[in-house]
């Protein structure tokens, strides 16, 4: 045997091939990526692409703004320099253009499903219609670029989620994987918009997924970090809100901070309710969409003639408030007008977000409250600017019903740790206050409505076949040892399924079993798949419940289980433990059906 092996060129070639395979497998085994690691890589790519779309959207929005106002300055600054008729014309034109885009875009998009990324993640299948989303984002360019009182972060997050959805669909991800990737895109969008990777991750985890389990939070964090890094490398983005050093001047200040929590916790539900009422008001007018958006723009323009601060998302005004001092009477006027302007923009249906406007509401309310306390009891509120900062977080916590995200986001956006104690306390109080007043948040309202209308078929049924991935790698029972080794090199699995010519599942060959024998070329000629397959390899039927599937995985090192038809014995696909865990994590906290 050895003599022949040493002289026969074919045997020598086989030996060399075996040696090569052995080394390749050795290397692959050490750097072999698990399914979770691969998920992290896709999450990173989604983060990178999401940040690029955010940058592109910002650039376009600024371009539209420059064309409409003739100024490259900030929204408030541009509006301040426009004549009165310009203040009226620009938002009206922007609303008209956004309405036209939506009107004609609907014909182009023919969208069957919602474009809402939150819906796609939380209760959908992760598929976001691309054309409909592009139409909505294009319309948002006009409403934002023309000074609408609306945030640009909404479309940025939407676009980042769309790109992630496209990526996942291209790679034929399963439902849970696709939903997670879209969530990663959304986290990247938030992180890009606010330069806040931790808050970006927690925003999606806490608000949309309702879970901070590592199965989902890990990929979200990776995506958000990559997005933030990309933004920092490609732009000069730094801390979003540069603030002076705030500190707790006296323990007595905690008293007013508690009251501030109650105030913002009461204001936030009122703010949200007013937005919904404005929406109902505009719909009741029964105007065509173009006229409705133009009217919303006109309403903003009318206020902008005297109070240009109402335009845009309120960022520049928040910076002014935080860096104070500001005249409280002026701020009170701006606060009231901004509230009305946001109602006009949001209510008329202008595409955009209300996240940043919420920050403005919180900062204004906090500053006004701090100034009032300072006036009657200076020790209780030494610096109203600090109350503005805490008010932002508290209002956000109350409006979004996500206090953890709000605290983290405020900290990330300001990098002001000194204020963390009142911020935490105030946010939690505001959260519970708002929760006691009204059960709905900025985001849960639409999700609840949609959950009731369109229950997720995958989760309602909860069957293995819903999560199963078709066409897993298989080998024939008489496949040679060398062919098995090659197969293990070409596909990233730890178990190869053995099927007969009719596709019936016979068993599985484990990489763990054959690993020690790759150095023995003699086995290559002798051993076939049938010799080493495990006939008792666990399998699961397509109709079995997800709970049963989880039970099958318990105590099993395998990352996938073959799905086998119990009648014919045919291999139908495979079920990933990762997918199963993701679905269970998602199921753990679904929005409650609407009452």
């Amino acid at each position: 045997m050895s003599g022949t092996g040493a002289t026969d060129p074919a045997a020598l070639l086989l030996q060399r091939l075996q040696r090569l395979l052995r080394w390749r497998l050795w290397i692959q085994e050490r750097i072999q990526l698990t399914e979770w690691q691969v998920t992290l890589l896709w999450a990173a790519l989604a983060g990178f692409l999401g940040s690029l779309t955010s940058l592109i959207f910002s650039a376009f929005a600024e371009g539209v703004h420059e064309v409409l106002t003739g100024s490259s300055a900030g929204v408030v600054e541009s509006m301040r320099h426009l004549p009165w008729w310009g203040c009226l014309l620009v938002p009206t034109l922007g609303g008209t253009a956004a309405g036209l885009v939506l009107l004609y875009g609907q014909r182009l998009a023919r969208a069957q499903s919602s474009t809402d990324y939150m819906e796609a993640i939380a209760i959908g299948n992760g598929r976001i219609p691309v054309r409909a989303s592009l139409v909505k984002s294009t319309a948002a360019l006009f409403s934002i670029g023309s000074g609408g009182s609306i945030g640009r972060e909404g479309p940025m997050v939407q676009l980042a989620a769309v790109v992630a959805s496209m990526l996942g669909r291209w790679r034929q991800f399963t439902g849970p994987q696709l939903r997670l990737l879209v969530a990663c895109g959304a986290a990247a969008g938030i992180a890009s918009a606010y330069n806040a990777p931790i808050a970006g991750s927690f925003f999606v985890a806490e608000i949309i997924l309702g879970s901070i389990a590592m199965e989902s939070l890990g990929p979200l964090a990776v995506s958000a970090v990559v997005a933030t890094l990309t933004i920092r490398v490609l732009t000069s983005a730094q801390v979003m809100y540069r603030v002076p050093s705030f500190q707790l001047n006296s323990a007595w200040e905690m008293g007013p901070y508690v009251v501030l929590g109650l105030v913002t916790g009461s204001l936030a539900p009122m703010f949200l309710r007013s937005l919904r009422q404005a929406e109902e008001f505009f719909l009741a007018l029964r105007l065509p969409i173009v006229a409705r958006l133009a009217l919303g723009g006109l309403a903003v323009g009318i206020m902008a003639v005297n109070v240009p601060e109402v335009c845009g998302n309120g960022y520049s005004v928040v910076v002014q408030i935080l860096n104070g001092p500001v005249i409280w009477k002026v701020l009170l006027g701006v606060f009231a007008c901004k509230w009305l302007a946001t109602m006009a923009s949001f209510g008329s249906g202008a595409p955009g977000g209300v996240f940043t406007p919420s920050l403005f509401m919180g900062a204004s309310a906090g500053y006004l409250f701090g100034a009032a306390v300072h006036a009657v009891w200076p020790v209780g509120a030494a610096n109203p600017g600090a109350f503005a900062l805490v008010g932002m977080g508290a209002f956000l916590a109350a409006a979004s019903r996500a206090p953890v995200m709000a605290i983290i986001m405020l900290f990330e956006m300001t990098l002001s740790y000194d204020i963390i104690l009142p911020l935490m306390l105030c946010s939690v109080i505001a959260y519970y206050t708002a929760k006691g007043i009204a059960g709905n948040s900025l985001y849960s309202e639409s999700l609840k409505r949609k959950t009731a209308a369109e229950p997720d078929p995958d989760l309602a049924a909860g069957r293995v076949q819903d999560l199963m991935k078709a066409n897993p790698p298989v080998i024939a029972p008489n496949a040679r040892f060398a062919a098995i080794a090659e197969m293990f090199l070409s596909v990233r699995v730890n178990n190869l399924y053995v099927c007969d010519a009719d596709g019936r599942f016979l068993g599985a060959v484990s990489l763990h079993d054959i690993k020690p024998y790759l150095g023995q070329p003699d086995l290559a000629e002798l051993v076939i798949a049938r010799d080493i397959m495990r006939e008792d390899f666990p399998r699961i039927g397509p109709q079995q419940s997800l709970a049963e599937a989880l039970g099958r995985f318990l105590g099993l090192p395998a990352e996938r289980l073959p799905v086998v038809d119990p009648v014919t014995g045919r291999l139908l696909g495979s079920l990933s433990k990762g997918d199963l865990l993701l679905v269970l994590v998602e199921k753990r906290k679904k929005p409650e059906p609407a009452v």
Partner: protein
Amino acid sequence: MDLPTQFLAQPDALILDLVANSREAALCALHAELAKSPAVKDAPLFLHGLLERAMLAPVCIAPEVALPHARTTAVERVVIGVARIAPPGVGFDAEHPQVRLVFMVGTPKQQVEEYLLSVAAITRLLKTEGIRDGLLAARTEAEFRALLARGTKR
């Protein structure tokens, strides 16, 4: 020394200078001897498994050496039988017309690892210098067993 290698050093059945005129005859003769082992619980099933496997793919590992094997519920531990066929040997397939040494292995169905250990131990044994020629030339059973024991020592 792992268990399958120990079984190889002291096989459950040994036939020297077996006279057979076909692969099936050789397999049946060695199987009949091996079936005497108390570890073989279902001899017909074991034989069926051996023949079925031999039909599915070649079982020869060298021009003169065959390794018929089966993972089967018919045995309750690894069983190994060795036969030396009288010259000129028997043909196992077109490429192996003169097989002289037959190592028959039965492994319990669940024991994939033991199966691979057994097969690997036999191929290692036959690679050891002088062992294969020695096994073919051994004049007595004691001499043959001594060579097996020497070849399986690490």
